[in-house]
């Protein structure tokens, strides 16, 4: 299948165009929703087409190894900035996830958002553009641009349509990530200047910059800046404090995107930029990152157990799950890295689904307190069934999707750091404890106060069914995804033992 049109550019800018097209429909909610949904569906179709065609695509000409789609144009010649987009297996999975989760986010907010509806969909579309750009950019400057663009709509999503201390959370989220990303910008300029001073070739092109000889001290500083920016997003343990606030106060769609996609951009950044650019510095930092990842796994699950607010519980469980991803990256072996990428996808799906479910409950009863519920199994069997399913998936039950990623990560890590793996195993058990507690309290305990709530509507059922199918499919048959990742992961890890 030859791609004779710039499909990557379309993937990025179609949502943006859709967002602009929403502006005239400022007062017409139905139209706005329709347009936004149309864009999201087209995006998903494009991503799906790529997903199925990818295995047969030849390597793109002029691209580094592993990339089967490549677009490269001069953008700002003065600085050697190019408009370079590329897609390899990792990018493809992330792009597909983005298209999928965005559509999901739109669907779950179909009824929940009642104020300023067009603006909400506009923000979701801009968000999609930004995230697509992050996953496709192969030029550091371009990457940074999208990285920042993705911040703005999330700020508004939390701040306008959130709950509780929404403004505090939105501003905290923004400043936190901004501080990190500005330091990364410095490091980007730093490596640009060092590379340029060496050979006279001033460029931001990622694949030209990879392999720039750096003295260890400088490399460490630059890598630290990258790590700081990405670790905030992932989030790695001591930098996670924005996450529970942002998640708890965000609207459902915001939480879904935050957990499903934004956290992935941090991990993706480490995989695509941080490690390849500074392999030696990364190796030097590995023990630290391993430690933090393991702490994150245990700590996230531990704190999750103590939560009374369902959304906060899921948020803290994300800290734990993303700790696994960080562990996989820190180990940097083919198996662990494949596991990390897979875990990113799986976590996006299960946590997205859990947030959607919590949102549905919240819409029905206006509370997210665990203790307010009970006996849902008898009352709303469908909802309860999906809740059980995704909780189990999140806890890493074999046969469901999360298990595969976690297993691969631990298997990969075992060869490098058995100690870390042993501790991380605690992180596998702990989720079981809090999940079982959650499920038991919600579904099976006798209800504490009478709640009348309807079961899933057709829309909700359809969303969850699709998610459930995906989760099960990925749980039992992850081989195609692993196949997609194989080349890229091998090429990436080739540099590091």
């Amino acid at each position, binding site marked *: 299948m030859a791609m004779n049109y710039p499909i990557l550019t379309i993937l990025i800018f179609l949502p943006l165009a859709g967002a602009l097209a929403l502006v005239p429909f400022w007062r017409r909610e139905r139209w706005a929703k329709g347009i936004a949904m149309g864009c999201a569906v087209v995006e998903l179709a494009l991503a799906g087409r790529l997903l199925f065609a990818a295995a047969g695509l030849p390597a793109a000409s002029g691209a580094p190894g592993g990339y089967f789609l490549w677009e490269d144009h001069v*953008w700002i010649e*003065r600085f050697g900035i190019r408009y370079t987009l590329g897609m390899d297996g990792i990018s493809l999975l992330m792009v597909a996830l983005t298209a999928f989760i965005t559509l999901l986010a739109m669907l779950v907010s179909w009824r929940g958002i009642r104020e300023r509806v067009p603006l909400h969909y506009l923000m979701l579309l801009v968000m999609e553009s930004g995230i697509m750009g992050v996953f496709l950019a192969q030029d550091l400057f371009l990457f940074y641009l999208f990285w920042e663009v993705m911040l703005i709509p999330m*700020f*508004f999503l939390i701040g306008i349509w959130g709950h509780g201390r929404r403004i505090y959370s939105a*501003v905290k989220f*923004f400043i936190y990530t901004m501080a990190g990303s500005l330091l990364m910008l410095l490091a980007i300029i*730093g490596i640009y200047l060092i590379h340029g001073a060496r050979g006279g070739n001033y460029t931001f092109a990622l694949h030209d910059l990879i392999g720039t000889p750096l003295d260890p001290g400088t490399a460490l500083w630059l890598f630290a800046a990258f790590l700081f920016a990405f670790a905030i997003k992932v989030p790695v343990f001591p930098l996670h404090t924005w996450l529970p606030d942002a998640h708890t106060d965000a609207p459902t769609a915001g939480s879904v995107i935050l957990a499903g996609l934004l956290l992935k951009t941090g991990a993706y950044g480490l995989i695509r930029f941080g490690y390849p650019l500074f392999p030696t510095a990364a190796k030097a930092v590995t023990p630290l990152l391993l430690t933090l990842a393991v702490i994150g796994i245990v700590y996230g699950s531990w704190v999750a157990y103590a939560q009374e607010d369902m959304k906060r519980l899921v948020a803290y469980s994300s800290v734990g799950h993303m700790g696994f991803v960080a562990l996989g990256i820190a180990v940097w072996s083919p198996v662990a890295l494949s596991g990390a990428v897979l875990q990113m996808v799986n976590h996006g799906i299960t946590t997205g689904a859990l947030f959607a479910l919590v949102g549905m409950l919240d819409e029905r009863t206006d509370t997210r307190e665990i203790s307010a519920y009970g006996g849902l199994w008898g009352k709303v069997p469908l909802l309860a069934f999906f809740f059980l399913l995704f909780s189990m998936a999140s806890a890493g039950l074999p046969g469901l999707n999360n298990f595969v990623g976690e297993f691969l990560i631990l298997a990969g890590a075992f060869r490098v750091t058995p100690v870390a793996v042993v501790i991380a195993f605690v992180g596998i058990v702990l989720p079981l404890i809090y999940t079982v507690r959650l499920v038991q309290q919600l579904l099976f305990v006798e209800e504490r106060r009478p709640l009348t709530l309807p079961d899933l509507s057709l829309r909700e059922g359809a969303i969850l069914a699709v998610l459930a199918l995906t989760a099960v499919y990925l749980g039992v048959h992850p081989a195609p995804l692993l196949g997609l990742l194989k080349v890229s992961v091998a090429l990436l890890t080739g540099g590091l033992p």
Partner: protein
Amino acid sequence: METLVMPAINFAAIMPETILSIVAMVLLLLNVFVPGEQKAYLAYLSLIGIVVAFFSVVSGWNAPLPMQEGFNGSVLQDNFSLFFKAIFLISAGLAVLISDHYMVKEECNYGELYPLILFATAGMMLMASGTDLMTIFLGLEVLSVSLYVLAGYNRSNIKSNEAGLKYFLLGAFSTGFLLYGMALTYGATGTTKIAKIASAAALDATLSSNPMFVVGMLLMAVGFSFKIAAAPFHMWTPDVYEGAPTPMTAFMSAGPKAAGFAAFIRVLMVAMPTLKADWSDLLWILAVLTMTVGNIIALSQNNIKRMLAYSSIAHAGYALVGFTAGNGEGTAGILFYMLSYAFMNIGAFAIIILVGKKGEPNNNVEDYAGFGVKHPVLAMIMALFLFSLAGMPPTAGFVGKFYLFSAALKSGYVWLVVIGVLNSAASCYYYLRVMVYMYMKDPVEEFDWMKLSPAIWASIAISAVGVIVPGIVPSIILQLAQKAILL
């Protein structure tokens, strides 16, 4: 009887200044001879003058050297000054566009405003192209005197009076420093011509350690720091910016600041490269202080004009980072940044004008509550300007900041840039605050809506384009800026 030699005059070198002055004088007379309360025609006439002057600026671009020099080497209309002149004209044009609306609303539509803006612009131009300390001083005075009047233009408003008086007193004070510095420099080198100062310093190595010369440089730096509102010489800025009529605040923050930079850069980089070790240290300190003071105090401001005043101090600090770098990149960065800043700041002020009621009782951040719901399009554009001020991509503000910071990194000022970046992150907070009120709080009271004039729409649209387009395709302006550096 000795024979007189005709000095090399070359009026082409001051063409834009001449055009503006003539138009200003015509407007002055028209204003007194044509009776009536409607003064909008003056605005349109001055716009014509500005456009003609702009064409003259454009046609002077890349002119051969003999065409640039004038008045026996007192004036040099090189690309550097032309780029600045374009910035001045743009900010003057935008200020004119937003003025009529405001002046009618505030009932201080006297008509002298437009000639004064034009005179001020002519003064700025003279500052940018002056290659003699005297010419620079002359331009500065023409600019300053006009600005003193403009700051106190709303004479029935006590805050505007305060602004005018304060600006006058502190401006006169700073002019004293500047002039004293020029006098000392003249004393040390025996000339006021910038090129000759440089050659004198190059020939005589002892001059670099001559206290008279060094103190002359320092005092001039102090004088210019007042003009560009660099900390610790920024004290006048908040009161003046808050009190002055909003269009004039917009104008002051964009044009004259750029003019101060133009003269500052020329004096330090061309006349005193031998003192570079001294002045780059000085600028380092100034830049850090300016950024930090501006941003930190802006965090606690409630009045939006005052907040933008402090933000404008901080922005002068970012530009000083590029200046500290002392290389061509830094200068080009300042050029680019000043241009972007003119667009984003005047654009933001245009919206403040639209929101403000008579007498400006509602210029606090809280008064923007619900703006995003009531006026979605305007709020979105305001958000655009604020994001650009905060340096978010893809806006001109980001590219400009990127340029400045990378120039400083290139010269090895890593810590300076780190401080700049942290400041930049902190500054997000106060810009976000406005957005929080615009979008995330419920409206407290109705917005008092005047009929939007096409002029103010035009200014907002132009500013928005000027913020977005260089943010996405900066190449053309970057190339122009690159050709406009002093070497």
